[in-house]
């Protein structure tokens, strides 16, 4: 299941990241690592980007980037 398929504020643990290698590496560095709980907490007015909560911080991720996050 992908994070972008879930409704807002539904928390799931990350399973893996499935996207371009270099970009995923940066996302991992930012704390989006497998096992960690993540949720979309808000959607910015035009529908993109999404605000994703991870490790106590909020990241603005484009829909495309958030769709790389596979959750359990």
């Amino acid at each position: 299941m992908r994070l972008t398929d879930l409704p807002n504020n539904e928390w799931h643990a990350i399973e893996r990241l499935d996207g371009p290698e270099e970009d995923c590496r940066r996302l991992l560095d930012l704390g989006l690592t497998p096992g960690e709980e993540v949720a979309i907490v808000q959607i910015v007015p035009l529908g993109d980007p999404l605000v994703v909560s991870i490790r106590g911080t909020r990241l603005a991720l484009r829909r495309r980037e958030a769709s790389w996050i596979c959750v359990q």
Partner: protein
Amino acid sequence: MRAVATPKQPESKTLTVCLVGMPNAGKTTLMNVLTGSSLHTANYPGVTVTLSEGKSKASFGEPLNIIDLPGVNSPFSPSQEEELSCQVLTGKHDLVKPHAFILVVDASQIERHLKFASFAARQGKPIVIALTMMDLLERVGQTLDPQKLSQALGLPIIPIDPRTGDGAAELIKVLHKTINQPTKSNVLENLSDEPIEAYNVIRKILNEHKVITSTNPQLARQQDNLTSHIDSFVLHKFFGFPIFFIILSLLFASIFWVAQPFMDGIDNGFKWASENLVQLLGDSILIKFLAEGIIQGVGAVAVFFPQIVILFFLMTLLEDSGYLARGAALVDRPLSFLGLHGRSFVPMLSGFACAIPAVMATRAIPSKRERLLTIGILPLMSCSARLPVYALLLAALFPAESAWKAGIVLTAIYFASLLISSLIAGLVSRLAYRRRSLSLLAMELPAYRIPQWKPIAYLTWSRSGSYLKKAGGPIIIISAILWLLANFGFGSQQTNPTNIANSANSTISAVSANKPLIVKSELDNSFAAQIGKTMEPLLLPMGVDWRVGVGLISAFAAREVFVSTMAIVFHVPGEDEEAQQEGLLKQMRSATMPNSTSHVFTPASIIGLIIYFFFSLQCLSTVAVVRRETNSWSIALVQLFFYTVLGYLLAVSVVQGLRATGIA
């Protein structure tokens, strides 16, 4: 023309330390607490990034030289700013070679920040951790024990309270100790480079040593409720954009209206100085050069200083409070559609005040392609130097009783600049980068905080000062050259009387008997006029004569110089400003084309000039800054020619088109 501060390698054994950390860790605030008034910005040769540097306060013990490095999100495929910090950290930078690092770690984001800290710790230099944002922990229902953390990591950790400055003296003391007797080994340096494992180890250490305790079990997953609440308004489906536009309108309103009295004051001050210098010391050529060339050139720069200060102050305020990142998130979608990036937002916003700080602000854009594209459209943002030009031209276009029409047109010009730059960005990104690989947004939205005034004041001041340095030099030099061109001419040159037949008080300068090659001339006979007259075949299709051409050339120093040049070429005696503006408008309305009775300033030619100024890159300082920031003459020159030629061609087509439809 760069003011190069020689990099300070320790004279008399002053040790150098660098502040590093992730963005929003509170580095700037800490820098301010540590160094106080000794802070200054230093340009290091070979790097475009300006670093702030200062000595730690004497009250904290033996002073240290402290350099603040730009924040790093990830050392992996870094932006230009991040790359510099990484170079210094890994010891690859030629000039900045610190003895130790202060790692700034946000206590409310401890895992992510320790992950970055491990990168720094691996480099083998002495390290002290400064723990910030302890007050934010309360909001997320946690407490953190710095002593336990220090034991767990094997590193000295000093909590800092930026409001009171508590911890700063301790930090400096511990730094000296650590440099003299480096800690043997620490946990962070053995952490894997691989993020998944590194994060797992960090969590394990934090749990084993019971570093963090939850004070409010209700607050799950460290959610910061205050930030969530504010975001639910600020990024609200319906309110998000209205709030955004209100904030932007307030920003622009202050830039233009709050700055106005200061600008008038500065303008009058320089005029006064220039006039008094001539009165006091006589009007020899040298004094006139000083008064009109140099002092007024400095004035042309200084007059925009209030706007720049207000712009930087408000931007820093928005940045510090956390809103700027939200603004960037709001516009990321439309901007990325155009091939730009959410982070292009801040440069574009600054571009409405001045393209120079705007170009410098593009360094935070991670991908090179998006950065170049942003730089590419910045000259179209309607900068404040265009405002006096538009004001004059619109006043000439509309009679005083329908001034409201000028207001509407001016607003339309601002929107058009946004629209057309979007169009150009969209076209270029689709044509030139057809198979573009998309960049990453992944931008942190920091917790909302009450801004800290002292660091904001300092940042405002240093950013404004850096603008003055970068923009000031070229403008002053160019205005000095232009003054010389406007005041000297070939001695043997005879004026063609018909060319100046219509200028009101034309006086042909007495050419001295022995006819030296270059003599002091009236404007009509000067090099500038020569250039203008040579250009006339190009100017006639735009519906204007050589005098306007002189104005267009002089506007390359700074666009607003066009207005004062118009006053000179149309011989308006310069006394008080209102009379001058009135007189100028009158002269402009009655001016006629050479060898003809048709007017120079007709609705068609004025509209043509507005279009020309709208597009044309009439600002050599921008060219200089673009060249420095992109490290490429060809980008800077292509941009200069593209916009200037585009402006010219569009102006000519519109003027000719209007004339064809019967509008003179």
